[in-house]
């Protein structure tokens, strides 16, 4: 199924763990602990601190506590978007969750630019994603090149491509062992081997499990 954020989606929890740069507007009593750079008990106005998105997103957009700073990465991409030159940006290096993080910050952007940027960026890069999923020659590690949403799409493309290549070459219609069973067998062989070598705790990391 396609990624669609819900209460239980782990990616959404990872995105909302990301930190957001905020300027404190009013004194916030007994919240000094949020400011790593100071020892004061209260959070003093004027300070700039990083707060988790899971907290920021619960506040009203026009709350009086903080002003949210729009991350540079979206401004930097803005120029490339206008020149339709986003294909070769290594988005994963800018931010692992470039799109989803940007989506959450969109309402806090005074001049309403982020929403448009992430929409345009993905639109321009999808053709590129389609091509590289067909013949992924580009060796640089995918994490750098693609953000989380893109690597999911890329994986889907590669999976389909492999299925088609196998089908066209008449391979792949045998019934095969279930992945979990296979993985379990491999783990079992590793554990037995570490048992035979009498190396006790050596062998597989999970060998702390006693084989009865």
């Amino acid at each position: 199924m396609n990624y669609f954020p819900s209460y239980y989606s782990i990616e959404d929890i990872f995105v909302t763990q990301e930190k957001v740069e905020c300027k404190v507007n009013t004194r916030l009593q007994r919240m000094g602990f949020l400011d790593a750079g100071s020892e004061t008990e209260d959070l003093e106005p004027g300070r700039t601190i990083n707060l988790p998105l899971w907290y920021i997103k619960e506040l009203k957009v026009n709350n009086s506590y903080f002003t949210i700073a729009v991350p540079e990465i979206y401004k930097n991409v803005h120029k490339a978007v206008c020149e339709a030159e986003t294909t070769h940006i290594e988005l994963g290096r800018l931010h692992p969750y470039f799109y989803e993080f940007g989506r959450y910050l969109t309402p806090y952007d005074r001049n309403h630019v982020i929403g448009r940027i992430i929409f345009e960026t993905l639109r321009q890069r999808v053709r590129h994603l389609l091509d590289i999923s067909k013949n992924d020659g580009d060796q640089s590690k995918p994490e750098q090149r693609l953000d989380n949403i893109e690597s999911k799409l890329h994986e889907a493309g590669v999976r389909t491509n492999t299925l088609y290549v196998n089908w066209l070459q008449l391979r792949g219609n045998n019934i095969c062992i279930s992945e979990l069973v296979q993985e379990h067998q491999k783990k079992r062989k590793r554990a037995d081997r570490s048992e035979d070598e009498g190396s006790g705790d050596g062998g597989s990391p999970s060998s702390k499990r006693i084989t009865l």
Partner: protein
Amino acid sequence: MDPSIIEFIGEKCMISIIPNFSNEPLHLIYGSVGPFRAGFPVFVPLWLAAHLRKQQKCRIVPPEWMELETLEEIKEEEKRSKYFTKMPSEHYMVVAQLVMSTSPDDVPRCEELRTVIKDIFDIRESKLRTSIDAFIKGEGTYAKLDNLTLLEIHSVRPILPYSLDHIARYQRMATASQRDTSMLGLNTTGANSGTNSMSNSFFTQ
């Protein structure tokens, strides 16, 4: 749907065989087949034709479009046309794949046919690529895909629909934030699009 499922669906189409045995008609659930009379052609579903051919119980009669001249014409037409041309069969790739792999010697000039058909498939694949590009650039959420066969459609699946879903989600987000800057929901149609404001909601005992 991966290609093996599309093959499963494509295997239903009928093809002519010449059995080397005789038998009463068979009343299958999907319909009746036969009667089978040795040496006389009869139409059967492709899945049955392939099975009988592997058991050397019949010869497969390639469909009339599966010959070099017709296919060369189709290839030229496909090259020339900006749009996808109509294929001789809704499952031309599945039929070609099954017939040529099960009974190459029933198909005259089989190897040449194989390459022409692969060329046609590749031309259409790259045409599909460019039309996707235009479609996405055109900010459309809707496009016509006439004359594309099931196997071709599923060659860009799920990456194309998934990408369009995300693009649409971010488009809705961008336009929504232009309209109002109300507090954020997880997603417009998602579980808690109406995240209530903090102040009045917490721990009502």
